C-alpha cells in the first residue's frame, strides 16, 4: 500500500468516526450514507438523501429489461436530460432495503449511469435524480422470473 492510500484510509476512518459520533451529518468526501441504505421505502430514502418530495419526470429514463432472467443480476441504467444533474439513485421497491446504489455526479460527469442490481422478486424500480437542487423520479416495473430446473 502506498503512502497516499494509507493516508486516505486514515482519513476515511476519521470521517467515519466523526459521522458515528454525530459530529458531522454529511461529509463532503463520499461518506457512505447508511441511513439512506437502511431506508425501506422511496420516501425513507428520499428523506435520507436530503429531499422532501420528488416530482415524476419524463426527463429521467430507466434502461432496464421488462423481464429479468435472473434476479441476481438485473441491469439498470439511468439517463436524464435534466440540466445540472447532481445525484442519481437506483431503488428497488420490494427489496428489504430499497436503495441499491447512488451516484454522486461532478461538474464533469455526464448524466448517465449503469450498474446491475439484485431483485428478490418482481418489483418497481425507481430512478431518483437530483438536478439543480430538485428531486425527480421515474419508475419502471421489472418482472423477475424463476428459472432453471431447480426453480
Amino acid at each position: 500500500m502506498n503512502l497516499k492510500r494509507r493516508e486516505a484510509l486514515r482519513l476515511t476512518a476519521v470521517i467515519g468516526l466523526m459521522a458515528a459520533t454525530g459530529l458531522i451529518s454529511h461529509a463532503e468526501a463520499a461518506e457512505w450514507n447508511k441511513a439512506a441504505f437502511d431506508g425501506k421505502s422511496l420516501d425513507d430514502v428520499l428523506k435520507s438523501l436530503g429531499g422532501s418530495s420528488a416530482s415524476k419526470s419524463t426527463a429521467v429514463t430507466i434502461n432496464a429489461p421488462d423481464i429479468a432472467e435472473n434476479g441476481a443480476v438485473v441491469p439498470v441504467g439511468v439517463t436524464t436530460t435534466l440540466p445540472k444533474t447532481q445525484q442519481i439513485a437506483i431503488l428497488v421497491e420490494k427489496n428489504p432495503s430499497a436503495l441499491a446504489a447512488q451516484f454522486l455526479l461532478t461538474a464533469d460527469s455526464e448524466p448517465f449511469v449503469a450498474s446491475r442490481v439484485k431483485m428478490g422478486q418482481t418489483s418497481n424500480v425507481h430512478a431518483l435524480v437530483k438536478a439543480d437542487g430538485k428531486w425527480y423520479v421515474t419508475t419502471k416495473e421489472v418482472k423477475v422470473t424463476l428459472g432453471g430446473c431447480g426453480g
Partner: protein
Amino acid sequence: MADPMRVRAQENGGVVDVKVLMKHDMETGQRKDASGKTIPAHHINTITATCKGKQVFEAQFGPAVSKDPFLNFKFKGGAKGDTVSITWVDNKNDKRTDEAKIS
C-alpha cells in the same frame, strides 16, 4: 487481499466512457450458510473515479448491487492517453485501486 478490477475507458467526442468490473462477493447479510448461520454483510460501500488528480465520479453501493459489480459512467475532460483511476472501499475497509489508460 482484494482481487484486481477490470477498467476500460474509451474517449469519443470528448466524452470518456468508463466501464468497471469489480471482483467482490457483495454479500447481502440476508443469506444463511449450510449450518443455518447468517452470512454477515460484506459489500463495497464507495467507489471514486479520478482523472488527472481530479475526482470525476463517485458511487455508493448497498448490498443489493450484484456480485462482481459492474459500473458504467461517462465524464468530460479526459483525453486519449490520460489515466483513469478507480478505487473502491468496502464495509470491512478493504480496498482496491486500479487504473486504465483512456483509449
